[in-house]
């Protein structure tokens, strides 16, 4: 037990753990994480399965990495506590030094005489030190006065506050890992989705994609309504970087897309023999649409938003963006198919209609529309509050540790034939040069007192 405690109080162990964490984290950035077994086999050959068994392929969520983090947390906790008690003691029950020899063995020190009787010198010391915002403790013995003065004592605890912050952040991480969840909700406009486990549902009222003049996407916005049993609780427009928070459930704009299974297509029908002839129709996928004035029905058999031919020369889509929309359209006269073929919106010249029967009809695909859907990520993460508290403590602690240096002064006044012999010393762990200057200023102003 004692050996175990010694293990955890050792700074060497902390340093070793830190170095192991650095190495492990580094490895994880060079091995692609959470890929398929076949990808690792291609990349690392025989080593692939071994890396997977050792969980190097999901390193940051591996059993051993988490164990390492927990060990590190335990080490931080114990190291901090072990050092905290002596610090508390020193902070709240400081010993007032009564031996001039000890004061004069400090690094920052001075010894001098002032031409005042001890009682007056004592008041001068008090005045000077409180003017410089030192907190004073004093005691006296026969013909002698002892002072212990200190300021910015919180600086001593800066590192402890930092460590507490780190522990709280790690705790937040554990809470997030165990209790947090996220899920993608895919909505089309006016669709309502119930949130399982919560007594409300969410409706997408409107989804907008904004573009820059050069055509690149500027923003996605979704107007969301939170409903409870049909009643509107709240309504808000969310966009990237501006989520909606409802009772700890946070809704993020995370993606978008089009439902290309249900497109509507605007098609212009022309006749080669009749330049003036033009009919504009909207076709729906899978429905026959009659062309007014002609005994002709058009129907869309296939639609591809980003047309490309694959290795086997089969039409397929390169992406879900409407970069090269193409539709396979058939023309029917009663029960007789008269033509069929691919029509391209971007490349009208490539459109080819194969006809079984003589026809002078040509088609142009002018516009494609599909119901757009918005992907909203819903997340609930009860660990987040701990993370922000931990971050606050981390920063506050760093400030205290680096920029709030504790200063201690120990002063003894001794009567020497109606005058006063002064022994003064100071301790500062941080920014000693600045303290040296302050110390000298204090001494000089005391010397001048008459």
């Amino acid at each position, binding site marked *: 037990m004692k050996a175990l405690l010694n293990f955890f109080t050792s700074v060497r162990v902390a340093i070793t753990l*830190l170095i192991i964490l650095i190495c492990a984290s580094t490895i994880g950035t060079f091995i692609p994480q959470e890929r398929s077994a076949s990808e690792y086999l291609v990349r690392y050959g025989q080593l692939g399965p071994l890396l997977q068994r050792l969980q190097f392929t999901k390193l940051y969520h591996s059993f051993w990495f988490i164990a390492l983090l927990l060990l590190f947390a335990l080490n931080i906790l114990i190291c901090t506590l072990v050092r905290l008690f002596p610090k508390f003691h020193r902070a709240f029950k400081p010993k007032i030094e009564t031996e001039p020899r000890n004061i004069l063995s400090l690094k920052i020190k001075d010894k001098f005489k002032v031409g005042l009787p001890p009682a007056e010198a004592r008041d001068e010391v008090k005045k000077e030190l409180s003017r410089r915002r030192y907190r004073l403790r004093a005691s006296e013995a026969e013909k002698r006065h002892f002072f212990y003065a200190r300021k910015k004592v919180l600086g001593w605890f800066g590192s402890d506050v930092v460590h507490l912050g780190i522990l709280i952040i790690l705790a937040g991480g554990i809470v997030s890992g165990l209790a947090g969840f996220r899920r993608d909700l895919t909505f089309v406009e006016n669709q309502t989705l119930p949130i399982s486990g919560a007594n409300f549902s969410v409706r997408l009222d409107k989804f907008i994609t904004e573009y820059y003049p050069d055509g690149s996407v500027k923003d996605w916005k979704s107007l969301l309504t939170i409903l409870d049993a049909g009643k509107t609780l709240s309504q808000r427009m969310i966009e990237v*970087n501006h989520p909606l928070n409802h009772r700890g459930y946070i809704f993020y704009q995370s993606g978008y897309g089009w439902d290309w299974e249900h497109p509507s297509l605007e098609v212009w029908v022309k006749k080669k023999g009749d330049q003036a002839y033009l009919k504009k129709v909207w076709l729906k996928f899978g429905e026959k649409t009659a062309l007014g004035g002609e005994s002709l029905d058009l129907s869309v058999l296939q639609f591809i938003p980003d047309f490309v031919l694959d290795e086997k020369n089969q039409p397929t889509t390169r992406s879900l963006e409407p970069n090269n929309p193409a539709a396979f359209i058939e023309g029917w006269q009663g029960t007789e198919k008269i033509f069929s073929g691919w029509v391209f919106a971007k490349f009208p010249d490539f459109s080819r209609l194969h006809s079984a029967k003589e026809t002078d009809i040509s088609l142009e695909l002018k516009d494609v529309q599909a119901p757009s859907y918005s992907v909203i990520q819903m997340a609930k993460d009860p660990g987040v509050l701990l993370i922000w508290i931990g*971050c606050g403590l981390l920063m506050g602690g760093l400030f205290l540790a680096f920029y709030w240096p504790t200063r201690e002064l120990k002063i003894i006044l001794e009567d020497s034939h109606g005058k006063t012999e002064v022994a003064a010393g100071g301790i500062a762990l941080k920014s000693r040069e600045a303290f040296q200057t302050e110390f000298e200023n204090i001494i000089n102003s005391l010397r001048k007192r008459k």
Partner: protein
Amino acid sequence: MSESTIFMLAFILYALAAAFYFAFLYSKKENPAGVGFTIALIGLLFHTLALVLRTVESGHAPFTNMYESLSFLAWASILAFLIIEGKYKVRRPGAYLLLIVIALMALASSPLMPKEATPLVPALQSYWLWLHVSVTLLGEAFFAFAFITSIMYLSAEAKEKKGKAPKSGLTAEKLDSISYRTIAIGFPLFTLGGLVFGMVWAFKAWGTYWSWDPKEVWSLITWFVFALYLHTRIVMGWKGRRSAAIAIIGFLAALFTYFGVNYLLAGLHSYA
């Protein structure tokens, strides 16, 4: 004058300042360093103007692509160098830091870096872009300064071991102490900008404050290395060579976080 002209002007002024600093290093007269300091300060003013113009023209924070962020890192490094030199009255590290700045400016103005301001993708449209990137790069600028003084420490210490006292009065011990103080400024800034602001922004934009993305991991590694520096120094009393080595590794880790991750590892931080 256009932003790029003013940027080039700042670049020239930095190069001129470096020339004066090196004149000081080799002539051992104080004057040229003072002139160099003033020129660097004027360069910084022009550079600031260039960054402001860039912001006004593009309508967003001036660190959304490699050209912009290199330029900002150079700016922050000059700022860090002026602060440290003003505070600790050490002139020699400035000469070498200016070399780093010149390298950054040269890289930024090389034809490899696309310079046109592109509209911001939705994920970057946030005031956290300002906070996250500027504070992180400022922290890294101080790490760069500590990198310089640590290398200077190693060379000064080797000379002192052979019994040669430094002619400039800048002892190895002083360099060691300046490295520590510079890291004491850089570390809280890097923690705030890189880790804390980064987590807050990630939570606002992606819905998760930490995703073990390579850039995040490398920031954490950098942070761990400087934590190692501070603990070995404060708790275990390490000083001198071992401290200097850790500070050098720390800066290299920061550099890798900044550059290497973008070019070698893929991840969420694919913007700049």
